[in-house]
């Protein structure tokens, strides 16, 4: 059972983002492209995912990710705090994307869609 858990979580370790919510994954994905502040995050996420995060959701997810040490706030620039993904955040995002990838491959195989 422990082996299966390890396999599912990937070689990079536990998928800590599994229960962090979609907003956290979207924010980490956005920050993987470079540090951003709140407004830039909302715009970028809308551009690549078509999801418009509410500001309350955004700050909730930012606080959660900061508590988990997956992102860090940089010194404020004109009242805005840019955020940056940490090495732990990169690892967590990679593990989560691997997990999603396995689900995607399995789903496509079972639906006979190919393209695996």
């Amino acid at each position, binding site marked *: 059972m422990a082996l299966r858990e390890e396999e599912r979580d990937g070689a990079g370790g536990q998928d800590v983002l599994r229960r962090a919510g979609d907003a956290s994954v979207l924010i980490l994905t956005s920050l993987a492209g470079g540090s951003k502040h*709140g407004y830039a995050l909302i715009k970028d996420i809308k551009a690549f995912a078509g999801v418009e995060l*509410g*500001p*309350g*959701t955004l*700050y*909730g997810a930012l606080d959660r990710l900061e508590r988990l040490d997956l992102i860090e706030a940089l010194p404020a620039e004109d009242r805005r*705090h840019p955020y940056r993904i940490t090495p732990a955040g990169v690892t967590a995002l990679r593990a989560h994307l691997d997990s999603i990838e396995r689900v995607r491959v399995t789903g496509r195989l079972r639906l006979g869609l190919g393209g695996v």
Partner: protein
Amino acid sequence: MRLVQTSLRCYPQRWRSRHGEEAAELATLLMRDGTPARSIAWSYLKGAASTRLVLQPRRRLGAALGALLAAACSLGVSLALLSSSVPASAANHRPSHEGRHCVARGTARSSASISTRVTVKKPASNSTGSGHGQHC
């Protein structure tokens, strides 16, 4: 904007001192882009509620314990009310029915303990005597 400011006031002081100005500025930018102030305020309200729950786990634990206690108390009260609402004649009917009417006479007489128990449970009610022969 006043609506947004009001919703931002719902956040804990610690949060406001850190994100307050930035959040207000973000709201201004979003409104400039065409996002309705009402939806921004609603988003901040929801965020404030969840932030309060996360930042104050002791209070959350206390609230959960309080809810459990209240549920237990209300259950106890309802049970007490239910038991008190059962008529006395109904409560008295059962032992007299089991002991006097339905147990075969031979069995009842052969077992002294049963008859003793029945005698003890026999309530001082005038319903026990009525209809004795009809049931059996």
